[in-house]
């Protein structure tokens, strides 16, 4: 994996400085890291100030990673050169293979065979590339990079990775790995799952999967993975093919079977890109739990909404001893129940009293703290209390600081930089908690 995660030398075959080209995008991204880059281009003397080589054969040192972005008809010859040079890993960005039909499929298989003979692993073809933020490796033509973190994203759509990179620019979560699997002529989704499982930086594995070649193998590997896995699968609306006529045949559409397999293997299935990122963030920062959830809120409405969203979870009643501890420190109008409404005028000390009393109850393993910004609310002081309580009690904590004004955003940043995932809508917070509730770990 090192040749893909932290290569010392990278050759870019098809490097160019032509504006708007993939070859230039790759070069610009690779140059953000501190490693030796060899642009390969027989028609240009230099690319972005670096001297080029006419082919990979003429590169003077060993090449850890070769990235191929030449037009399709040349790819096979270039792959042969890479095999001759015994590079340690290859990414083929170029398109025009299996996605175009049987001939392209055959071509990409032949290319993989050429590389496999020398034990050279292949990512792609027809992919965006790979990013390993912790080593400043951006071996892709994505529109930028992301900060390091615990989420490994494996996607069959390169464009989805582009958008997630773009959308994660001012977020507090980060990625251990982003891999665009493309046509997967060589390395498969199952290989990437194993990589991510072994990767010490990865806390959660997130996959966008359009189709599977061998669902059974995927299922068997997914079952053995100990890290939480989040899956987004489109194609739910696809009508099941009614070619066969038993009840089971007509009821058992692909989407239902896929969902069943995910559940059986202990993976978390999500329905949208937002939920995928929300849930991944939670699983990257917080440990999964089994047991009850308590809700603390300074607004009745938000508390009731969260209760609705969490109806399939266990929301235990507060014990008498918990209520005894609470009563003297609460507003007379407090709810004395779960959800615990500590009333709109709650100052940080009331939040602290509520959080400590509730987390002290044994059958409560996770806490959702909601804050609606009211005129006396002190978001940053509240955030500090929550971070402290999370560390003291070691239980799962998710927050829902609603709104998004300056004070609220500063508090959210503080929470998230300390590993407390925040969501500005109780629905999203509930989804994250439900995923933590059923996830592995």
């Amino acid at each position, binding site marked *: 994996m090192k040749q893909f995660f932290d290569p010392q030398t990278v050759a870019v075959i098809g490097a160019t400085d032509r504006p708007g080209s993939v070859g230039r995008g790759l070069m610009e991204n690779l140059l953000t890291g501190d490693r030796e880059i060899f642009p390969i281009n027989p028609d240009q003397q230099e690319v972005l100030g670096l001297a080029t080589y006419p082919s990979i054969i003429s590169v003077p040192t060993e090449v850890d990673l070769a990235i191929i972005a030449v037009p399709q008809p040349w790819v096979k010859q270039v792959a042969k050169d890479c095999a001759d040079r015994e590079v340690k890993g290859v990414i083929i960005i170029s398109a025009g293979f299996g996605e175009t039909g049987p001939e392209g499929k055959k071509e990409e298989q032949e290319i993989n065979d050429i590389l496999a003979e020398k034990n050279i692993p292949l990512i792609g073809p027809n992919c965006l590339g790979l990013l390993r933020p912790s080593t400043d490796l951006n071996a892709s033509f994505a529109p930028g990079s992301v900060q390091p973190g615990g989420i490994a994203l494996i996607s069959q759509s390169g464009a989805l990775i582009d958008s997630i990179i773009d959308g994660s620019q001012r977020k507090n979560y980060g990625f251990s790995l982003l891999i665009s699997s493309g046509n997967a002529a060589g390395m498969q989704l199952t290989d990437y799952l194993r990589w991510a499982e072994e990767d010490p930086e990865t806390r959660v594995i997130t996959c966008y999967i359009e189709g*599977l070649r*061998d*669902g*059974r193998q995927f*299922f068997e590997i997914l079952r053995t993975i100990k890290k939480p896995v989040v899956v987004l699968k489109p194609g739910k609306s696809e009508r099941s093919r009614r070619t*066969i*006529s*038993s*009840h*089971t*045949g*007509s*009821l*058992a559409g*692909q989407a*239902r*079977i*896929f*969902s*069943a*397999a995910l559940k*059986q293997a202990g993976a978390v299935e999500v329905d949208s890109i937002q939920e995928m990122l929300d849930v991944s963030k939670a699983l990257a920062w917080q440990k999964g739990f089994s047991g009850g959830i308590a809700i603390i809120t300074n607004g009745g409405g938000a508390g009731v909404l969260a209760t609705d969203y969490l109806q399939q979870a266990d929301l235990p009643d507060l014990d008498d001893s918990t209520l005894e501890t609470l009563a003297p420190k609460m507003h007379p109008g407090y709810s004395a129940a779960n959800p615990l409404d500590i009333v709109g005028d709650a100052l940080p000390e009331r939040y602290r009293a509520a959080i400590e009393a509730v987390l002290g109850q044994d059958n409560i393993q996770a806490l959702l703290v909601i804050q609606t910004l009211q005129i006396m609310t002190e978001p940053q002081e509240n955030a500090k209390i929550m971070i402290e309580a999370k560390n003291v009690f070691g239980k799962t904590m998710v927050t829902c600081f609603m709104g998004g004004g300056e004070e609220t955003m500063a508090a959210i940043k503080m929470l998230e930089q300390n590993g407390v995932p925040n969501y500005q809508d109780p629905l999203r917070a509930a989804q994250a908690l439900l995923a933590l509730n059923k996830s592995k770990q």
Partner: protein
Amino acid sequence: MSLLPYLESQNILHQYDLNSVETRVVEKEEDLALALKELGWPVVMKTDHEELIHKTEAGGVKTNLQTEEEAQQAWQELHTLHPRVVIQKQIRGEEIIIGGKRDEVFGPVLMVGLGGVLVEIYQDIAFRLAPVTKNEALAMIEEIKGKKLLEGFRGRRVIDKEELAAMIVKTGDLLVQEEQIQELDFNPVIAAEQLLICDIKIIL
């Protein structure tokens, strides 16, 4: 695509210790009276036609036959569809479906749900990849939204979930090992003194 004849289907079930309702397959009219006498009333009669996948729609199923006269008339109609006629004791109770298919991506897949004719409307079913453990089978039963119907709702018979789970596990094993089977439906499975598979549809 063809249906496995009833007796062959039943033989496979026996190999996996799966209980099915008492059945006679009659080909000659002179054997009818003895079969009816042995089974007792009421009975269900069905054609054993290998190509009639939708037997009900093709007039191939006659239910709730109470007298020899009714049985005789059903025999005449069914016997013209196909020489072999399946005759079973009619049982009442909550109807469950256990099914399976060999999926091209995931291989053997199991399904359980509330059965009968409404299964395709309510789609109250749970899936797992086979084989399954007893605990996975129990989890499938818990996923059925209408599971209260199996728990003695308004005086109905309480269905032994352990027994149903055991049947699901065996069906999964059957599906995994009998690789020639593309799809199967046990619909309905009815709880009498014990759980009985009352109709078998095995598609090769």
